[in-house]
């Protein structure tokens, strides 16, 4: 069973604050993804990466940066947090070569972020 962990699980910050959300996967998956989940919008892709040092822009990237430091670790950065970024954030990983069935994404438990 793929393992994806996220920290913190809950975070409160103020407008203009600096936030880093962390994700780690221990399954040597190539791809990692950051999503936000909001009522009425479902899951939307923010950024993704296919390996250490790589970053790809997702569908809702504005206001977010991301960095993939290792195969295992993917970080989401909010440098000037705004109330519109209050959301539930999920990290996911997938292996597109061998290993797990192609295209299957394994999700972490989520980080709930509140921006006051």
């Amino acid at each position, binding site marked *: 069973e793929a393992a994806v962990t996220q920290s913190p699980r809950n975070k409160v910050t103020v407008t203009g604050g600096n936030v880093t959300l962390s994700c780690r996967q221990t399954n040597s998956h190539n*791809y990692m993804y950051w999503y936000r989940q909001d009522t009425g919008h*479902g*899951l939307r892709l923010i950024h993704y990466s296919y390996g250490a040092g790589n970053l790809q822009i997702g569908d809702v990237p504005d206001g977010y940066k991301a960095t993939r430091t290792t195969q295992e670790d993917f970080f989401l950065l909010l440098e000037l947090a705004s109330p519109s970024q209050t959301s539930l954030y999920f990290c996911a990983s997938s292996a597109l070569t061998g290993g797990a069935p192609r*295209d299957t*994404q394994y999700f972490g*438990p*989520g980080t709930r972020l509140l921006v006051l």
Partner: protein
Amino acid sequence: QQQVRQSPQSLTVWEGETAILNCSYEDSTFNYFPWYQQFPGEGPALLISIRSVSDKKEDGRFTIFFNKREKKLSLHITDSQPGDSATYFCAASATGNTGKLIFGLGTTLQVQP
């Protein structure tokens, strides 16, 4: 513009009944359709998936019916159990699209005992 649409938004069935969740899509290049199940407080988890070369995929009580011509699919949950109460997301992707999934807004299923 929502590329993947789901209906109904919410659904309540009695234990033992069949729940039918619907999904449609716009992009004809989509060829992989996973359904994810999400319980409150957890991340989504893959439930069952189908590729566009098939018109049906079955896994226990869960079956996907796929109509490529109409760009529609449905998830049937037979003999529904209270433990099936969750939100179900239909998603889609295209080959060579780096695994990027487009999710629908979800259907929240409540199974009454």
